[in-house]
């Protein structure tokens, strides 16, 4: 990614950091990447910036074993085409899982990761990636409470 300079990285930084897109209040459609105009409503559209929930499902995926120069260090890595809850699709890496566990329809959620580092002490690019949804943490609170009760009972 050495072809582009610092301003180019910076220009779309907010959208990469926060998964921002466009929402049209006239027709209720969400877009990613952002658009200046709603292609359905044209002049009647009322578009505004929207931060997506970050939840979605894998529409398709691949496991890259031979990366481009910038990304080869990370290989093998999973690239997913992810359909967000709000409708639009994003292309992003899927991390925190084994490549063989990824499948079409898998639920994923957004996380914040390093995308790549420019060579020779250049800037670091951060942005969204996705990981499998794991809501199992919700059940921990019941366990923690029960353990605490048991401890208090002992003493």
């Amino acid at each position, binding site marked *: *990614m050495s*072809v*582009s300079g610092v301003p180019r990285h910076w220009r*779309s930084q907010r959208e*990469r950091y926060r998964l921002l897109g466009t929402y049209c209040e006239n027709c209720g459609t969400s877009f*990613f*990447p952002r658009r200046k105009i709603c292609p359905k409503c044209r002049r009647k559209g009322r578009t505004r910036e929207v931060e997506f929930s970050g939840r979605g499902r894998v*529409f*398709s*995926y*691949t*496991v*890259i*074993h*031979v*990366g*481009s*120069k*910038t*990304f*080869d260090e*990370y290989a093998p*890595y999973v*690239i997913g*085409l992810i359909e967000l809850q709000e409708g*639009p*699709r*994003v*292309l*992003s*890496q899927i991390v925190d899982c084994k*490549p063989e566990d990824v499948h*079409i329809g898998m639920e994923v959620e957004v996380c914040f990761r390093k*995308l*790549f580092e420019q060579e020779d002490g250049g800037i670091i*690019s951060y*942005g969204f*990636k996705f990981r499998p949804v794991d809501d199992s943490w919700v059940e921990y609170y019941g366990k923690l409470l029960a353990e605490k009760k048991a401890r208090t009972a002992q003493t």
Partner: protein
Amino acid sequence: MRGTGGFSKRGDHGLKREVAIVAVGATRFGEHWSKGLKDLAWEAGVQAVEEAGISGKDIQYIVFGNMSGGMFEGQEHVGALVADFLGLNPVPATRVEAACASGGVAFFQGYLAVASGMYDLVAVGGVEKMTDVEPGQATEILSAAMDYEWEAYFGATFPGVYALMATRYMHDYGLKPETLAKVAVKNHYHGSMNPLAHFRNRMTVEDVLSSPIVAHPLRRNDCCPVSDGAACVLLAPLDEAHKYTDTPIIVKGVAQASDTLSLLERRDICTLNATVQAAEKAFAMAKLARRDVDLVEVHDCFTIAEILALEDLGFCAKGEAFKLYEEGETYVGGRLPVNTDGGLKAGGHAVGATGVKQLVEIVKQLRGEAEGGRQVDEAEIGLAHNVGGSGATAVVTILSRR
């Protein structure tokens, strides 16, 4: 309102005259360590000029495809560069860029230049010098043909984007890797008969399935190579074609269409809509049906791309094309011979030259000059299909012997 991409209001598309290919030339595709971009362009150009029995000075306009002289060679402004090297100054020379469809797009432009009546002899070429950079660098340069900001930036590669199509296609239509491998096996078989092919070895399904994974589910032998090469065709008005050749090949239809650069905004990633659109227009212009076509050259940058192409061109319904491979119908001698020169997979892929190289093969076939046992019997009509990036540009050209 979306642009219709239609033709002019006149029923004959506003064109003044019919156009024919009167001569062709092509280098071998492969690793040309001792030849640079100019050398390759020269080699293909001279062949065509000699075949037509003309002097280079007879050429009135040069238009050729080159994807990225700038990134592969650090050299832009290659239009004038090539014209000068061929000793053709001050002939106007234009380099066009549409990623891997650069050659096809150049042909479309050259066609318009002759059909419009502006020029009577036009050289259409394509050239790419790719092996001067390391493979990792080449992967990065080719990824510039995708959406940089929202695909390449996140680590997507070119094989990766086609792999996304393949994964979904397999899921939706039940294509198996063994069947996909047959695309490469067939193309290597054809390539083995083509002296200009990058690879001339035959290959088995097992060879494909045991090659290393590049981007799951695509393996190395599902992917075309990175090649150096050039190709050239000369165009003239049909009614003047006899001055150059006894076997002019007529351009019956040619159309170009565009689509999103990224996969993100395509609802159906198993269809290349630009191919669908270009094919509809080219067939309408040629006033021909799919069944009239005797052979096709399709853009098989990856095995899955060949399957998608046959469907998007209208030869098969969606989800059906791979069945032709189970039955061996795409070999020379089959119901629909596909990529008789080995395609991109075995024939090689010098990105900017590929669209023109496909036309060279069709011309040879229609003239009955295809060597090595790959000649399709009584081939009268051939179709070439050239794609840029992951389908943002497609050019479909239909050529006929009569």
